[in-house]
């Protein structure tokens, strides 16, 4: 345990030394949700009172929520892992007395902390300037559930990004596959549009995929649309997908290491 705390401490120092990149990532987390927010504002100011049953206040809150979840629950570890495997820099990691999976998780958490220090003031500023449009519906109980669901969403994101990074064991450049995953996530998670506004067949597919647990489900809790049974069911769904993702990571990692070592020898 002590060695992982040391790893976390070193990762934090590393992340702080790269805070300029963190500034750019924080800006990017906000850019598109805010841009989309302003486009929807133009739609409602054109005379619409509701779109798909969603009023202006709910729509504004939704997209500010997307920006918040971008910062809180996203993971971009696939790029570091791709780089490490591609360049052979993975080898020294394999010799160390701690798991590469957990050391990458420590790095990811460190980035999140550094980015969080930048994102929090931004979030407060934007919430203040947009306060007339916003409507949160959180009790203490639902706030706690929201924190839990965001932790699960982040872990699911991290394990998925680790698996995607591991594709580098077999593909020279998994960029297109990673981008394909980003595309599916944008569509099926509710990040681009509330799922209720998508064509019905797409909504049906989204219900069976894990992506909706990244944005749609936490946002339903944030805006007070999810009741208790739905919250418990959603948390169970997140856990289910987390277990599946973890099992897949173990399988991919073992297979990948064999391919990596065979190539090296």
């Amino acid at each position: 345990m002590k060695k992982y705390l040391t790893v976390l401490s070193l990762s934090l120092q590393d992340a702080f030394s790269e805070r300029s990149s963190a500034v750019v990532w924080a800006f990017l987390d906000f850019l598109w949700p805010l841009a989309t927010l302003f486009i929807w504002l133009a739609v409602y100011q054109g005379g619409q009172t509701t779109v798909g049953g969603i009023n202006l206040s709910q729509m504004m809150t939704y997209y500010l929520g997307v920006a918040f979840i971008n910062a809180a629950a996203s993971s971009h570890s696939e790029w570091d892992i791709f780089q490490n495997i591609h360049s052979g820099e993975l080898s020294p990691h394999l010799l160390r007395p701690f798991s590469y999976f957990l050391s990458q998780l420590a790095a990811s958490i460190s980035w999140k902390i550094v980015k969080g220090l930048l994102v929090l003031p931004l979030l407060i500023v934007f919430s203040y300037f947009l306060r007339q449009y916003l409507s949160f519906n959180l009790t203490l109980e639902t706030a706690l559930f929201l924190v839990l669901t965001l932790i699960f969403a982040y872990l699911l994101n991290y394990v998925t990004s680790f698996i995607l990074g591991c594709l580098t064991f077999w593909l020279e450049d998994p960029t297109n596959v990673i981008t394909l995953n980003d595309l599916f996530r944008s569509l099926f998670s509710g990040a681009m549009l509330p799922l209720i506004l998508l064509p019905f067949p797409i909504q049906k597919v989204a219900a069976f995929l894990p992506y909706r647990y990244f944005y749609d489900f936490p946002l339903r809790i944030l805006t007070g649309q999810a009741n208790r049974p739905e919250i418990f069911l959603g948390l169970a769904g997140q856990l289910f997908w987390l277990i599946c993702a973890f099992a897949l990571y173990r399988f991919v990692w073992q297979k990948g290491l064999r391919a990596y070592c065979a190539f090296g020898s």
Partner: protein
Amino acid sequence: MLHHLRVYFAALRLEVVHRIQYRADFIVGLFVNVGWTGLSLLFISALFGNIKSLAGWSYNEMILVLGLYRFADGIINFLFYRSLKQFSKDIRRGNFDMLMTKPVNLQFFLSIRFPALTDFSQGLVGLGLVFYSLNRLQVTISPLQFLSFLAIFVCGIIFHYAFFFMITTLNFWLVKVDNFRQLVHSVVALTRFPTEAFGPKISSFLTFVLPLAVIVSFPTKVLLGRSEVWHLPFAASIAILSLFLSHRLLNRALRLYSSAGG
């Protein structure tokens, strides 16, 4: 000039050979490009679920803007994206010295050495959308209109390239930043919507402060017969100024780089 063209076509030949070797990856890349365009179309369709016009733009006009954005972005990505990504890496990893010894204009070489065929296909999808929407709008374009469009569109491409190049050059000062290209891509992606869609204040900002409007909104207005007299001279000035600034910025950065090397 001829020498530079030869260098460029050599780079293009290498890219074609590489893409033929990795066909599956090329096909996935095509699918991804079509997918992102599809996603944007879905978003626009959702916006227009119950309205006829958004900030004075109709559904088909928004499709035209999207198509022109994808076409312009496809051209930029095909010509410059991978090269400038590598430029950024070379600065951050200190591999720059070799590049400075090449017998070709440095800014040119840095900008074109890795063309990207997959992104060319993105441009074709965008062009397809442009023709589709122009057909739906039943717009007739006069020769003069077409020439104006071409002139402003080229100015937009030049500004887009110069903006991308300048942001990448910042790596000389901010060596640790490895995500400038994502920054440029995301900021320019705002042009997939007409600037008026973001409201009057942001629209003014995107026209006069960070003139992204020159890239897509201005040329679209020419096609729709809604262009204003000052658009072309403004776009030309922005293109020339930004290209000049990109060159000056590189020279300044190289002076800094050389002095660090001793």
